[in-house]
């Protein structure tokens, strides 16, 4: 087992190097550099600036310099955010995205499973239609509609929560509901199907025939089987949630990873972009 893990880890090294190389050259191909601004500085100063970051060398020399540092674990300084190391920026933003992702996952699983199971117990009744209609609505409503709606209701009209920011525990509620709500809708549909399938199995009929209470049938016998499709879904959902959602972070002004990813590319902040791509690739 240890050998297997070790081998897999070794295999990731060349993959990461290839990814870093590709990202580096893609960024170099994009027109415009990190120091192009609407207000041009004097050509002399621009030259000094490029000399400082080694941008006056050939692309291959720049690539060589970058890779040598990278192998030593140094992602370099951000071009845009002078004075910040790329590792420092990621170390600051990732815990935020991770925290939001965890809450959102909790929301998605709890609400999703409860709704799905309730719906599965009495198919084609009101307790099925209501949660499933909500789920359809949840899938149809993208986060950029859901977020502002929640803010309008709970932030502005009722004044229970702050409309944006990341200061207090209460600031986690609305973003977690927005991000989690979307996946809760998916989860509920899958949980419903899973539960209905299990409930139609022979061993459930046997359990009922033996006189087990409905409560016991569901939680003791059906539950384990019913959550299996949900568990399968959880892995990709978790991955996409903890890596930060640009839209949710933007709506709620959350200092997470998503915002960096988009702005770094726009700023042609090469070191930050490669750093982020490698970080995502490693996970």
């Amino acid at each position, binding site marked *: 087992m240890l050998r297997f893990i070790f081998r897999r880890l070794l295999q990731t090294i060349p993959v990461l190097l290839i990814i870093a190389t590709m990202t580096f050259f893609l960024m170099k191909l*994009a*027109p*415009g*550099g990190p*120091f*192009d*601004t*609407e*207000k*041009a*500085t*004097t*050509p*002399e*100063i621009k030259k*000094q*600036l490029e*000399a*400082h970051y080694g941008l006056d060398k050939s692309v291959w020399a720049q690539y060589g310099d970058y890779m040598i540092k990278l192998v030593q674990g140094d992602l370099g*300084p951000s071009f*845009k*955010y*002078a*004075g*910040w190391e790329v590792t420092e*920026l990621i170390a*600051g*933003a990732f815990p935020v995205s991770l925290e939001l992702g965890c809450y959102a996952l909790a929301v998605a699983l709890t609400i999703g499973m409860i709704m799905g199971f309730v719906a599965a117990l009495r198919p084609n009744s009101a307790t099925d239609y209501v949660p499933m209609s909500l789920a359809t609505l949840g899938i149809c409503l993208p986060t950029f509609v859901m977020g*502002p709606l929640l*803010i*309008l209701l709970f*932030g*502005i009209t*009722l*004044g*229970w*929560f*702050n*409309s*944006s*920011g*990341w200061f207090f525990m209460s600031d986690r509620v609305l973003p977690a509901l927005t991000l989690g709500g979307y996946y809760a809708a998916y989860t509920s549909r899958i949980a419903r199907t899973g539960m209905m399938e299990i409930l139609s199995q022979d061993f459930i009929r046997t359990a009922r025939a033996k006189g087990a209470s409905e409560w016991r049938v569901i939680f003791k016998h059906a539950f384990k089987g019913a959550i299996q499709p949900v568990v399968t879904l959880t892995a990709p959902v978790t991955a996409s949630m903890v890596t930060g959602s640009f839209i949710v972070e*933007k*709506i*709620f*002004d959350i*200092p997470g990873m998503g*915002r*960096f990813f988009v702005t770094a590319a*726009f*700023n*042609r902040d090469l070191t930050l972009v490669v750093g982020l791509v490698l970080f995502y690739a490693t996970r």
Partner: protein
Amino acid sequence: MTRALVIVLAFAVLCGCGRRETRVASGNREQILHVNNGTEPANLDPHVVTGVPEHHVIMSLLEGLVSEDPRGITPQPGTAERWELSEDQTVYTFHLRKNARWSNGDPVTAHDFVRTFRRALTPSLASEYAYMLFVMKGAEEFNTGKITDFDQVGVKALDDHTLRVTLNSPTPYFLGLLLHYSWFPLHLPTIEKYGPVYERGNRWTKPGRFVGNGPFALEQWKVNHVIVVKRNTNYWDAANVKLNKIYFYSIESTDTDERAFRSGQLHKTHELPQMKIDTYREKYPHLLRIEPFLGTYFYICNTAKPPLNDKRVRRALAMAIDREAIVKNVTRGGQLPAFHFTPPGTAGYTARARFPYDIEGAKKLLTEAGYPNGKGLPPVEILFNTLESHRAIAETIQEMWKKNVGIDARLLNQEWKVYLDSKKTGNYQVARYGWIGDYPDPNSFLDMWLTGGGNNDSNWSNPEYDRLIREAGRTADLAKRLEVFQQAEAILLDEMPVIPIYFYTRPYAIQPSVKGWYPTILDNHPWHKVWLEEEKEN
């Protein structure tokens, strides 16, 4: 029974939440101002940054020789309590306050300024705004490496509290330049402590390290979220600073910004979404401010490429645009239609030269150029950076050109850096452009069109224009100088390498409890003159 109990409990919990005290309400009580600064500052080292959001924070942390006037643009005494100007208007002698201190208690001396200017101009630091100091004698030569002895640069500490600055030529807007952060003093011993002084990447601007001489001191910096500054008790005028803290948020989305304002989390938004301006006008006029701003929105023509190498075509394009309709129906933020280039009233200067909105005149010009009713003219391509508001304006102009003079236009949007690259390399016909003055003087708008100027992407060149701008730079007499600018702008408008569209305004929302906040053309508000006061209810 249980169901009823659950409903009652749920209701009790919900009611228990209740409405919370907003940040604005608690801020008003505790003199804590919450403002959105629009984006994350790249850094807080004035020699490394270039942006306006950085300026807003740095203004609170550092103070230059002169300080902002909350009501206008006339520089007020800052770290210097008074100054004298020599007869020939090239030597300024500043007398620093004896009680000016850094936030760590050290006195602010003239030597600090000399050392700071040296750092700003040292080539290895590659300070992008170093050129702001080029009015100083020898500054440009030192920055470009032509001289290496800093003693030859026109700045000298005569003693601890007297600073002499020698300029290349009379510069009437010099005191205005001093309001820019590139002239603010830095505490060099602190910078030395945390890294090389003359290199980038020094980490002295982190909270707990930053030493400044401004009315506030850095308390907290959460990247992409908030910068908090608190009152600096060592500031020379600390007794008159009323705010205890300022929270600078870096909310980028204008919708998030506006919602935060509406839910009572912000005293002031950075701007307002275009769609919301009318709503505020109708429903909350007391919260809406629309203020003139020192900037021009215009189209730039590539004069090296036919058919725009013909000034008659450029003039025809400019004359066929109904600017009133654009500001009224498209931008809707109270912008002024622009029939000249420099914003009106820039340091007492309003251009006399104008061009008209004249469809018949435009048609005549096109006929003269050989394109009657636009016939034979290949489609003109309008380049703009991807943004909804730029597209709306470009579409409107496209329609006006078609309808008014029969010219076909194609729209091309590019991502910001690609657009900058296309503009720089002359790979465009007509491109959107915007210019915000660095300092309130016509020179800030007119010297950019000098032949080969760093921002003159129009490839336009006119020897007479160049001569006039250089002459204005040498003219000490204020009235004469403005007259020279009048002549220069007349040439610019006659040749039209630029098609002015409107003069910017700044629409934003602000709580009535913010006091000491007045419209200023550069949108800089001296934080130490601002305070919070709850409106008394009748």
